[in-house]
């Protein structure tokens, strides 16, 4: 079980801020996770329609899309950052 958190317009389109998910065995990498979530419903599909633009953090550190998700306690999905 992994806590998945969403921020900004990813959160709004999916319709929730966080959820606990049991990842299926075929989800190996961050990229796999995005593609798998995208199939869940329209909200996810809308949020993740361009997965390459989605930024991901594993255990609160930035992660590339080819990084493995195994062992993650918390995974966050969000748009490119616009602070400062």
């Amino acid at each position, binding site marked *: 079980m992994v806590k998945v*958190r969403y*921020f*900004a*317009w990813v959160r709004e389109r999916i319709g929730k801020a966080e959820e606990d998910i049991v990842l299926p065995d075929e989800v190996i990498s961050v990229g796999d996770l995005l593609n798998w979530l995208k199939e869940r419903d329209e909200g996810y599909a809308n949020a993740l329609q361009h997965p390459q633009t989605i930024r991901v*953090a594993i255990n*609160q*550190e*930035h992660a590339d899309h080819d990084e493995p998700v195994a062992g993650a306690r918390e995974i*966050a999905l*969000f*748009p*490119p*950052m*616009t*602070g*400062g």
Partner: protein
Amino acid sequence: MAEPVTPTVRVQTEDFDVSAEVAKLTEGRTDVGAIVTFTGLCRDEGGALSALELEHYPGMAEAEISRIAAEAVQRWPLTGLLAIHRYGLMRPGDNIVLVAAASSHRQAAFEAASFVMDFLKTEAPFWKREHHANGEPGAWVDAKEMDDEARARWSR
């Protein structure tokens, strides 16, 4: 070179007082020759905006700014480094972010402050959303390619 200083990083809703923060960087020291501060403010885009709403990722925001600040104190001989980023609803004219870098000489202070801001904009998990002049929430601000280019110039 002396041991790098420990940066101060704060993520908060409250406003900050630039002169009070700068005073803390020189308090009890006689080796500070230069302090560069950058203050980012909320602007109204020619009257179109009533506010900016800043969302952040609690925990990671502090951690990511701390990582950036730790790299800055490794790269430049600083006597002090401070970064404060606010979240919540900002009105035009409000402070959003403060970076202050202190050093014996100006070059290090200028470069470190600029480095921290360039990385903070592209790596720290904050997102801005516009609120229109009529008070209605508007669009999320898009990330700028220019900001990625500004960050890229620091790669060694």
